[in-house]
């Protein structure tokens, strides 16, 4: 049986399967878009493998949601 972890996404708590990516957790919570581009467009993941940098989240620079696994109690904020 897969374990679940609790993560906080934009202030709300969600229970997600252990081992999934932060990007997958965000999409499960209803967020298709994680950041706003230079000209104001909402953007979501594109490459799924860490090279396009569209899935950046959190205040700390360049955390790629698609390359980061969820951890218990993780704080996730879209930009």
């Amino acid at each position: 049986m897969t374990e679940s972890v609790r993560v906080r996404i934009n202030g709300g708590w969600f229970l997600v399967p252990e081992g999934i990516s932060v990007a997958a957790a965000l999409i499960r919570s209803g967020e298709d878009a994680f950041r706003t581009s230079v000209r104001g467009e909402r953007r979501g993941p594109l490459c799924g493998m860490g090279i396009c940098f569209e899935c950046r989240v959190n205040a700390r620079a360049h955390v790629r949601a698609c390359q980061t696994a969820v951890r218990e109690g993780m704080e996730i904020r879209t930009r």
Partner: protein
Amino acid sequence: MIAVVGAGPAGMAAALRARECGAEVVVVDDNPAPGGQIWRGVAGQKEVARFRGSGIRVLSGVRVVAGDPVRRELRLDGEGAPGPIRYDKLVIATGARELFLPFPGWTLPGVFGAGGLQAMAKSGMPVKGKSVVIAGTGPLLVAVAASLRERGARVKLVAEQAAAAKVAGFAAAVGRFPAKAARGLGLAWKVAGIPFAAGCWVEAAHGDGRLSRVTLRRGSEVWEEDCDYAGVGYGLRANTELAELMGGPSEDVFVAGTGDVDLSWVEGEIAGFSAAGRLDRAKALEGRRAEARRFAAELDRAFALRDELRGLAVDDTVVCRCEDVVCGRLRGFPSFRAAKLHTRCGMGACQGRVCGPAAGFLLGWGDTGVRPPVFPAEVAALLKTTPDPDGSFPCPTSLPPA
């Protein structure tokens, strides 16, 4: 000590063979777990299980951001990354990424690469009950369709830009490679019933804030398909940045893994044996490598990109997604370097990994070349270095020789 960068098929093969020869091996891998793209999240995959069971030290979630081929030093970044490491031999197995060709609406949330969509699904994005259109080029599209269908997605269409005759020719060629043929048949079985259209591509994506439908073209026929997700990828391009930074292959630096899994694996084995000094064992694999290269050549021939794909991007289609530079602005420049300096195209977080190959195809530009860091990096990762044998440190601003 042999440092291997990348834990996909090539990296794992290199590490296993080097270790088999008695070398000390350390693997550095950006992904959260070994397997590369093709075996992402597939811990049960036999090669991944073998690698994990080998006890070879892997630094997962760690990237090489800079390096010095003269001092044989790699600078690392990532959570839990150690300070710089010094190697005796280096195997660069950084794999490949998808080629993304810009089209109107490609920046809408819900539009992924083809491999990208598969990677997202493998990493936990739910696709059950979602309608999906897969498009672009190459056998990867069929593999993605199979993978998504297994996960309960409703794959409405696989749109392959190559003409039907080319696809048929490739299928016939696959028959000459027994292992590939067996896999091919297995894949065909898994996607039976999913509409497959050759000579077909996505012209545009539409939606209000996120994808809701795509426009497809096949010859003079144009139509729309509603879809929750689109996976659009135009083949694989090698991640050459680190190899370029380290001055390419040399007596200390070996490069392996260019995209196709079987070729990647044997290239990795050859690199691993070579790095460990067993050139005899490396040479013994050259026949297998030649065979794998023949298959890769068939693939390149069949799935070459058609000219019409250059016309998909219009003036206000974003080409550089990091800096929002549109196609119309880029058309006037003679080179990537000129465009970069004037528009910031290629200066964003992805460092030209997405827009570079796209612009290369659209506008005929070459590369700009690489400078360290090859990934966005924390300053700390760049400042730390290791002392030379005499205890002295190099000048902090020294860069690898041009």
